[in-house]
């Protein structure tokens, strides 16, 4: 049946909705008639890059997604893995880049809100938030304001809902000047046999709307362009989404309370493209039809059109299909929590989405073609060749290695992030065993001796220089950060942030990063269980550095056996696991002290990575090692300096025999390495050798200074000042 006509569908209207000529032809073919405006709007959001993954789908299929402990891989709201004791960890990372650039506080806040919903939708109580942030150059006029707003927004939302924000990453690079990255990750815990999915089933079952009312928030940008066919355009202008963390907190409690009752068949949060994508996805997965009466949808402003209601991105809303006759159980719970609750429709056997409003039909669309037959593109790719190696001999040594170290630990990318994490309540829920500042945060599984370790990682400069190496490195580093605290790495979520996929070099970066991630996932038994793609991060034809942010989760069976990075005492031996070859290409040293970004990134030897990591983890699990830090950006000397700063205890180091040139030993970024402080270093080295793992004695802890034979000495206090000063002084007091 043809729905009520609305505004005429002109070429401009189609273009404003981001549909190509081919795509529109497909719309006509599917419908056998011209769509009305509401229907066109629905097609446009369902087929947007964001919802349909049309450019990335082909490549995402390459990602390994299976392991015996994976309960649910990509495709649901979040990934689910078995963590033992009948429990599951549910997690995902998602970008809110563009909204955060427009309005940093609300953009970041609603990013956190959205990812929380993805996790509790599946029946998990959120237990931790993390994030991956990338900002423009510190001297760019917008950067300070963006940092301030984003951090406050993440804190403002997470603190209020009472989920600790326990970790993340934050870097600066001019490529993000016009396109910052705000990727938010949530980890939740659920009973492994009580996971909820977004599948609708049972003809006649009620479709229920809960949470906040629907307003004209963030309605698809296309409406702005469609102002000319509406004379009340000014008042109806789409608005920035504002987060309401208080309502989210109530929604979490209400949903989790409802999930303890046996009433939910399917549940889905309303994220991007709100009611449209949630209803289509639920129905599509269940192979059913839906009829919705839009007059029943709770709205904030009277006179909202069908188009607006379907495309609104108002926050803190969920859609559910309930078991028949159980509506009252649900209604009581939502009323207790003072949230809106409305039965807005039911499931049908037609396979169609029929929307009614004011007594008429305003849309009538077949669900499968929309949900599944969305366009898929095989976009051309151009590979980035591996840059030439830079030999250590061709990289000038600094006049003073310790002064270079001081400068590095006080640089924008390596300095302490305390200013950030102190604005996050990282302790609420009283299970944060390892607070921010270590390799991975550790959150205890409530009332148990088990813990979850988690981290986010990516080195975009490696990814830019050679995407496949960079992709593999990001996964390996996440794996290593989990290992360094003693956790068994289980799975990852990936947040792929790239430029315009219509450009072959960008698509090439994407494809190769995926290949690299695949290599590492396979070698490390570390599957991808959820993820997100954000394309078009570019301004004036200049893309961001390719940034496949990796969020990773691991498990520690016995929290008594874990490691931290602070030296626990003086007079311990310092041992380096893994080989130090002095690889300086793409290093922080070259970038920060020589202003050079050339060379190949350090190669990632996944076999050695695994061997080294498995050895370290076994030593921690056996209680032999309690102090460990992986070697990442900045190299070995920076790593040891971080261990010293965290404890206030110094160290004296001597280059082992056969080591590369001193500055290359100090600042080289060879992969697969860990620094460990133990009582009997020689014993550890021998044990490692037996296991086929490279290990070297590097020095001893003690005193208040850090010394490297032949390079001089610097006090730990001085390093600490450099490391702790940069960010707070950059942000100034009360920075606005």
């Amino acid at each position, binding site marked *: 049946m043809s729905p009520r006509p609305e505004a005429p569908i002109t070429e401009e209207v189609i273009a404003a909705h981001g549909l190509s000529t081919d795509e529109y032809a497909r719309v006509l073919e599917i419908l056998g008639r011209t769509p009305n405006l509401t229907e066109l709007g629905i097609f446009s959001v369902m087929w947007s890059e964001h919802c349909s993954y049309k450019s990335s789908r082909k490549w995402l299929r390459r990602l390994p997604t299976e392991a015996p402990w994976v309960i649910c891989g990509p495709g649901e709201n979040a990934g689910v893995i078995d963590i033992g004791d009948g429990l599951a960890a549910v997690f995902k990372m998602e970008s809110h880049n563009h909204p955060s650039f*427009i*309005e940093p*506080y*609300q953009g970041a806040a609603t990013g956190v809100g959205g990812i929380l919903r993805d996790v509790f939708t599946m029946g998990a109580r959120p237990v931790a938030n993390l994030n991956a942030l990338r900002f423009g150059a510190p001297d760019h006029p917008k950067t300070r304001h963006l940092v301030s707003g984003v951090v406050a927004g993440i804190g403002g939302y997470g603190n209020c809902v009472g989920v600790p924000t326990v970790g993340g990453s934050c870097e600066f690079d001019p490529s993000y000047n016009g396109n910052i990255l705000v990727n938010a990750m949530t980890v939740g815990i659920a009973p492994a046999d009580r996971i909820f999915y977004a599948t609708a089933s049972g003809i006649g079952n009620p479709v229920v709307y809960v949470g*906040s009312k629907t*307003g*004209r*928030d963030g309605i698809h940008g296309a409406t702005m362009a469609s102002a000319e066919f509406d004379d009340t355009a000014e*008042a*109806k*202008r789409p*608005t*920035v*989404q*504002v*987060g*309401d963390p*208080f*309502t989210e907190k109530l929604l979490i409690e209400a949903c989790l309370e409802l999930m303890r009752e046996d009433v939910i068949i399917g549940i889905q949060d309303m994220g991007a493209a709100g009611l449209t994508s949630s209803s289509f996805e639920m129905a599509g997965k269940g192979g059913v039809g839906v009829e919705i009466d839009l007059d029943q949808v709770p709205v*904030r*402003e009277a006179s909202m059109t069908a188009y607006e209601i379907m495309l609104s991105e*108002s*926050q803190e809303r969920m859609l559910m299909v309930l078991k028949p006759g159980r509506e009252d159980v649900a209604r009581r719970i939502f009323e207790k929590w*003072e949230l809106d609750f409305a039965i807005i429709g039911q499931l049908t056997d037609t396979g169609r989405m029929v929307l009614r409003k004011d007594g008429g039909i305003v849309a009538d669309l077949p669900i499968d073609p929309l949900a599944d037959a969305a366009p898929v593109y095989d976009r051309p790719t151009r590979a980035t060749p591996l840059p030439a190696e830079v030999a250590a001999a061709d990289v000038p040594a600094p006049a003073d290695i310790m002064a270079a170290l001081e400068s590095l630990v006080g640089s924008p990318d390596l300095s302490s992030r305390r200013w950030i994490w102190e604005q996050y309540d990282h302790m609420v829920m009283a299970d944060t065993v390892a607070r921010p500042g270590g390799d991975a945060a550790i959150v205890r599984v409530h009332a148990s001796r088990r813990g979850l370790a988690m981290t986010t990682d990516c080195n975009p400069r490696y990814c830019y220089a050679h995407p496949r190496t960079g992709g593999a490195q990001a996964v390996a580093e996440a794996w290593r950060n989990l290992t360094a605290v003693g956790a068994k790495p289980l799975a990852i979520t990936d947040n792929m942030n790239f430029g315009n996929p219509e450009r072959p070099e960008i698509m090439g970066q994407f494809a190769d990063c995926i290949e690299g991630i695949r290599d590492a996932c396979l070698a490390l038994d570390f599957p991808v269980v959820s993820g997100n793609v954000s394309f078009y991060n570019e301004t004036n034809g200049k893309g961001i550095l390719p940034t496949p942010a990796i969020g990773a989760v691991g498990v520690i069976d016995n929290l008594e056996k874990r490691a931290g990075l602070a030296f626990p005492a003086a007079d311990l031996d310092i041992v380096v696991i893994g080989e130090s070859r002095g690889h300086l290409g793409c290093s922080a040293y070259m970038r920060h002290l020589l202003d050079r970004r050339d060379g190949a990134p350090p190669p990632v030897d996944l076999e050695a990575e695994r061997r080294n990591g498995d050895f370290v983890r076994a030593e921690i699990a056996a209680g032999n090692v309690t102090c460990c830090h992986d070697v990442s950006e900045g190299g070995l000397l920076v790593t040891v300096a971080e261990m010293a700063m965290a404890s206030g205890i110094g160290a004296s180091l001597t280059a082992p025999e056969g080591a590369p040139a001193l500055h290359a030993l100090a600042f080289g970024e060879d992969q697969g390495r860990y620094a460990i402080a133990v009582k009997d270093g020689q014993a550890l080295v021998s044990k490692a050798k037996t296991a086929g793992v490279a290990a070297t004695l590097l020095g001893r802890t003690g005193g208040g200074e850090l010394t490297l034979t032949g390079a001089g000495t610097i006090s730990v206090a001085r390093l600490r000042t450099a490391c702790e000063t940069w960010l707070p002084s950059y942000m100034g007091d009360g920075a*606005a």
Partner: protein
Amino acid sequence: MRARVHVTLKQGVLDPQGKAIGTALKSLGFSGVDEVRQGKFLELDIAETDPAKAHQQVSEMCEKLLANTVIEDYAIELDS
């Protein structure tokens, strides 16, 4: 000269605080409260004495700092 600035949320922008205040007033027994919107009110003492220039200066302050013009409107009054 004293400037009084009202910063309010643009029409259509969700006001979680106003909403919560409305609910709280109702539960305190104040019936008949329809909608509540919360904004900011700023008073600034400024040295500028020329009204036109003062207005200009305060507008700039609003654009740059006092209001978040993506979601907020502002209105300026000057007392002398």
